[in-house]
């Protein structure tokens, strides 16, 4: 086992998009039991430094594996189709239309009911995208296609964040 092994190898889970969250959580804790600096509190500076490196690495892998968006982006990159969201903003026209409609709906939203139905629509879109990403990565071997869907998902997450801030404003 090396620090440079993939997240999947480190967590001993199959290298695929579909993952069992409870298994990821359990593995995280198993690995931290071995690697956490607290385990080496009585063992000198060298052991502490190594433990720190491993513990950081385990947490890094955990953050990526447990989050579907980050996990998908990581797999796309492993398979030669990096997301490169900064340089690659080209999206299908239909998707951009949908985005504009949502933005308008957010601007015109009055009260919690409007926001809630917008949020529901986002949830549906998110689920559909994740299902499609799973097919593309785990069955069709289409990493570039999945990469495009990950970018779409990133748009949605950003928008969902804006919706959430509006919810908070209402709550105050």
């Amino acid at each position: 086992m090396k620090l440079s092994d993939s997240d999947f190898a480190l967590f001993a889970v199959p290298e695929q998009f579909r993952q069992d969250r409870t298994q990821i959580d359990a593995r995280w804790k198993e690995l931290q039991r071995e690697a956490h600096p607290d385990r080496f509190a009585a063992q000198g500076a060298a052991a502490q430094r190594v433990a720190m490196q491993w513990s950081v690495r385990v947490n890094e892998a955990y953050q990526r594996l447990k989050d579907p968006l980050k996990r998908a982006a990581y797999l796309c990159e492993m398979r030669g189709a990096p997301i490169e969201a900064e340089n690659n903003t080209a999206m299908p026209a239909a998707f951009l239309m949908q985005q504009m409609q949502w933005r308008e709906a957010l601007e015109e939203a009055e009260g919690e009911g409007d926001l809630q139905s917008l949020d529901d629509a986002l949830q549906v879109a998110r689920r559909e995208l994740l299902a499609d990403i799973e097919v593309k990565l785990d069955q069709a071997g289409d990493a570039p296609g999945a990469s495009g869907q990950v970018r779409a998902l990133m748009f949605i997450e950003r928008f969902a964040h804006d919706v959430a801030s509006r919810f908070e404003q209402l709550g105050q």
Partner: protein
Amino acid sequence: MALLQISEPGQAPDPHARRIAVGIDLGTTHSLVAAVRHGVSECLPDDAGRVILPSVVRYLEGGRRQIGFDALAQRALDPENTIASAKRFMGRGLADIAGRENLPYRFIDQPGMVALQTRDGAKSPVEVSAEILATLRYRAEDTFADDLYGAVITVPAYFDGAQRQATKDAAQLAGLNVLRLINEPTAAAIAYGLDNGSEGVYAVYDLGGGTFDISILRLSRGVFEVIATGGDSALGGDDYDRALAQVMLHGANLALTTPEDKAAIEVAARSAKEVLSAAETTTVQAVMFGQERNFNVTRADFEAATADLTARTLAAVRKALRDARLQKDEVQGVVMVGGSTRMPQVQRAVGDFFGREPLTNLNPDEVVALGAAIQANALAGNDSAGDLLLLDVIPLSLGIETMGGLVERIVHRNETIPTAKAQDFTTYRDGQTALALHVVQGERDLVADCRSLARFELRGIPPMAAGAARIRVTFTVDADGLLSVSAQEQGSGVEARIDVKPSYGLSDDEVARMLQESFSTAQQDMTARALVEARVDADRLVLATRSALTADGHLLSGADRAAIEAAIAHLEHTAREAAEAAQVEAASEALAQATEGFAAERMNHSIQKALAGRKVESL
């Protein structure tokens, strides 16, 4: 099939080399120290048999000071020089301190952490806290007639990086080896043994003298995560005293005229409150308007007058549950912390709210220190069961300032720690050799709305054309939630030098200066002390290395093993012969470096073993 786990022989340290480790609850109004003795966690008393140490320091003429009960007794006579509640000022600027106009201190408004002017000069809250920690350290060392190996110190779950760093600096000043900072609610949960009980969600309800904190913890597989915190920093037992004092005055048709009367009636109210925890009615005396008066109070009146205070705590509990996205019936247990939770109406209200009896069988003043001691004992390697692992999350996001005063988040709130994040920067001018970074903590998008944590200056960047340098800055947050930063130019591999200016903390230089001024250790020779400490550290390292060699020596080649043995021998020799701490420290560092590869190999090995074990299990 269930597999039995067998612990490895040779893991437990020599029983004769049992290390003394304590837990310290550094509280706003009072502090305690506890240790595990004969397998039981207990608070250590002072000479007079008292376990509580009021967190009060009074500065006298000639560098002398009073600490604890002695200082508390003089507080009314000498308010300017008698510092209480220093915890509220840790890692804070003057503008951050709520209600400062009602405090009797002479605050020094300066960049960074506020200081207090006393007759013994300016005192940082870190120095005041260090006095309290040192007092508890001496108490523990006297109890065991031995040096301390280390301490676990508790902090509120919501403490930010500056406040945690200030706490750690205070411990360093007090000569304590900090094994870990842990969150107060987590310590309370450990004291109740929740870590080896059933998995689930727990609430820790902490009503102290002046503050109320609610924390929601999740426990699974022996790992605690703080999932939400909340509370009211201006609500505590003192408010109950004041409310009861009003009832008493009203009942006797009196009105306050002087501060002395106000103080007298509040003291009387406090003692009435304590009696009413067990009795239905009581009569207390107070000298008012120059004559002694009796006041009759009933528990029913007291409860009616304070119902809104209790309701305010429950409002904060509801909010914390909302933040955690939990229903109250999902909470499996409620831990009561703080002396004010002795009041029957508080226990009843909390029990009614959650629909279950809160846990109250441990002393609510002691429970945090007791839990910290259990953790300290485990970290020192004394607990052979040693299965307790505390995983923490960072309570507030860390980010850096970018163009236009915006925050770019680097480590997100509730991310598991330790963690490290790298970020690449470049230069914008030809030949630029320095770069400034501003690290902030908070959830808002504007730098102005977040707390400034530190400013870093990177120097020694090799001069290059604008945009050609590629400086990778790595932000590392350790298991205590404390930040450190390193930087390297990627093309040349040159390490940039980093100057840190903590926004609300002490710089390394300031800590060094305070150590020099040797407060609290005034009578001790600092150089002799440093040598003793370096020797203790050296012994500790040799012991740890030997036990690692016994357990995993087979992983080493003959040459590597010989190099480590030689470094051990050199360190042992130096520790015996050297007259200066620096020489011993250098030899310790040499041994640490010689074992770097071995430590990495051992870690690989144990990770492999963890995975191998699992694969067999899942077959």
